């Protein structure tokens, strides 16, 4: 199992999911605010059964995978408040990342804290020279989070899925190591 990612000065940490996290994970993945931007499972927000979430947790423990999905927990008491993912299957130099915060914990800067942790990990401890993320065009808070982390919008992929009777475009964002280090 992968080690966790933390920093002494951070309010949050990232650690491997454990089977005991299935209930909390199932609960927030199926909340309406999360279901269209949960970055796990099917693109469309079909309800995820607990058994399906348990299988996801098992998949995420594969240390050979070219990806990681870690539990986002508070440093204060270890409560699971979301998850953060990165995947580099195409090129280890250009991983993608995603952050999902349980809606009950949004608006407190935890997403930015998690983003900073995972970016520091990717740029300081891996071969990454650029990091990408993809965010639906309706997801204003996600776009704001990416921008606050220093990502620059890199274009638009049209019609990546359907949502509430409309086609959704996916916005691409990128951040170069040199930009991250200069920030």
């Amino acid at each position, binding site marked *: 199992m992968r080690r966790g990612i933390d920093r002494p000065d951070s309010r949050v940490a990232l650690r491997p999911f454990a089977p005991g996290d299935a209930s909390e994970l199932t609960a927030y993945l199926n909340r309406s605010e999360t279901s269209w931007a949960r970055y796990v499972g099917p693109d469309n927000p079909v309800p995820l059964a607990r058994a399906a979430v348990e299988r996801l947790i098992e998949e995420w423990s594969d240390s050979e995978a070219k990806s990681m999905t870690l539990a986002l927990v508070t440093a204060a008491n270890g409560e699971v408040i979301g998850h953060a993912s990165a995947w580099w299957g*195409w*090129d280890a130099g250009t991983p993608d990342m995603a952050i999902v915060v349980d809606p009950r914990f949004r608006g407190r800067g935890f997403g930015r804290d998690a983003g900073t942790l995972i970016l520091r990990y990717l740029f300081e401890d891996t071969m990454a020279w650029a990091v990408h993320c993809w965010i639906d065009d309706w997801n204003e808070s996600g776009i704001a989070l990416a921008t606050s982390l220093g990502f620059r919008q890199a274009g*638009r992929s*049209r*019609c990546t899925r359907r949502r509430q009777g409309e086609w959704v475009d996916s916005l691409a964002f990128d951040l170069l190591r040199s930009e991250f280090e200069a920030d």
Partner: protein
Amino acid sequence: MALESKTIRLREIRDEDIDFVVALRNDLGTQAWSRTLPPDTTRSMYEKRYHDKEFSFDRTDGHFVISLTKTDEPIGYAAYSGLKDRHEAMIGLAIARTHWGKGYATLACDLLLGFLFDEAGVHIIRWWTTSDNEGSVALARKLGFVDGVRLRNGIFRAGQFADNLQLDLLRSEWYERHPTALTA
């Protein structure tokens, strides 16, 4: 009905094509658009890649040799991947260097796009390439693809960075350019 025009044909990869396809893969100028592989692919690698496939109704990819209609001489390779039912797919192709500049890539893409829009019924097709591949970018735009994404320094190749580009083409845009396809 085969995927065929007066000039070229897209057909299955046959035993006698393997050496040709391997040579395309071992040419750094014609192999995969982004991930550079060592030019050491062997015939047996490709036989496993293509000949061990089993029939399925759930295919998400298709791989073709581009050949001349009159002689069946192989001149290139075309493929689609990432097919999501009725939604999207990505396409790619490689033409042997000796056949560059003859318009075959355009003709092959016309056939492949026609198949994906008319038969697979996808809504949108994506074209990934790199900023240093000017021919690929020009071909995509000529076919009607629209610039969408530019990921800076997306690829390191030939000793330098290039950007990864994604262009896309909607079915409605394709039919605007090919109105006869709807009534054929």
